[in-house]
């Protein structure tokens, strides 16, 4: 298929940036979206032009590195997938596709479509862990009984890959879905209860410091999340934070 791409190009964080139009020909519908961009980049390199910078790593939907706001949606129009899992068969021959970086004050642009998402790492570092002895004499994890529903919900929350699609989709550029998943995965387990209050307090503090917006429960994050993280986690985060503050 032949496509018209309207891609955000920006030389550096300081550069103003603009949309540049590219035409790509003979794209196979079996390709992933990133492979389509690889084809474009190869043609740009062949013409001695600067290739388009975009984030990617595992290309199998588990690392959370790829991003892109495609035709107005984070990771494109499909549900429960990352951009590397988005197939070109989702589009039609002759389509025009807008490709923009994830937009948020907390995600400064590095170059073209690459943004700095280390704000999410700093939130994680502020409390997204449990303090356990790992010197070789830690107890067997299975020795602590955990109810099946709690284990399942914790696992669902832990599926978050920290890609930032929630921030990109939110009209307020809020990171609440991400933070709520990271808080929930521990809050639901006995091992996580010990540091629960400090965890939620410190993670919210860091989230606010990074410049993310306030959650208004629009649900856009839940819809665009490649891992289907539920808004119920946000309610849990609100409960955890309220209890921790009393």
């Amino acid at each position, binding site marked *: 298929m032949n496509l018209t791409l309207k891609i955000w190009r920006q030389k550096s964080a300081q550069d103003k940036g603009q949309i540049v139009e590219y035409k790509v020909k003979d794209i196979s519908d079996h390709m992933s979206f990133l492979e389509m961009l690889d084809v474009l980049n190869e043609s740009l390199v062949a013409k001695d032009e600067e290739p388009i910078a975009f984030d990617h790593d595992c290309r199998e939907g588990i690392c959370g590195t790829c991003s892109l706001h495609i035709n*107005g949606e984070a990771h494109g*129009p499909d549900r429960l997938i990352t951009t590397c899992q988005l197939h070109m068969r989702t589009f039609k021959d002759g389509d025009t596709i*807008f490709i923009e970086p994830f937009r948020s004050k907390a995600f400064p642009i590095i170059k073209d479509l690459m943004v700095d998402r280390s704000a999410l790492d700093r939130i994680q570092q502020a409390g997204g862990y449990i303090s356990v002895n790992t010197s070789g004499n830690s107890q067997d994890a299975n020795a602590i009984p955990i109810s099946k529903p709690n284990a399942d919900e914790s696992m669902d929350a832990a599926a978050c890959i920290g890609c930032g699609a929630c921030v990109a989709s939110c009209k307020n550029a809020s990171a609440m879905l991400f933070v709520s998943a990271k808080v929930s995965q521990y809050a639901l387990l006995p091992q996580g209860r010990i540091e629960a209050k400090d965890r939620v307090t410190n993670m919210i503090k860091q989230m606010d410091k990074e410049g993310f917006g*306030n959650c208004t*429960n629009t649900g856009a994050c839940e819809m665009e999340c490649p891992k289907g993280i539920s808004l119920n986690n946000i309610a*849990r985060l609100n409960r955890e*934070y309220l209890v921790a503050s009393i």
Partner: protein
Amino acid sequence: MGYFSSSVGRKFFMALTGLFLVVFLLVHLIANLTLFGGPDAFNAASHFMGTNPLIQIMQPVLALGFVAHIIMGIILEYKNMISRPIGYIKNNANANSKWTSRNMIVTGLMIFAFLFLHIINYFIPFKTTEIHNHYEFVVELFKNPIYTFIYVIAFILLGMHLMHGFQSSLTTTGIRNRKYQKCIEQMGVAYSIIIAIGFSSIALWFYFVN
């Protein structure tokens, strides 16, 4: 007061004032529905609302609740706007969220503008002048097609605001889980429709029937 200076705390404050206004609207609607009972019923209800000590105590609290909800709403919206200084050229927001949920500030500010008109129309005359027949006063106003139109539009906007606000405020206060969320959402829709249709029906009834 670290809690209320955080984003989550401010949202909680927004939700609490919102839920307080949700309760107020229901009380207001019940009082207004007595208009269908004729002059005696409404005048009695109006007298009760004007003299009952609890209602009198709640009036300044209500005013404060409105002001707090509006000011906090504007503060939060401003913070949200600066959280994305450069927007998307193409943004397909309808694919992932409802218009009503994204435009709370729009419906909210329009309801705020209506609130001014409403206070000038009713609250000030009722409080400052010696009107004994409140029923006549209400009926008189809804003879005006422009007022009737503005009121009905305001109630539709209010319904849209509540459609998101009801369930959103409960989520913010932590009341949401897999089991009850469907039920909460349906209650929110029912409540919003009751408020919008309840208030509108009064304006339309007196315009068309009387």
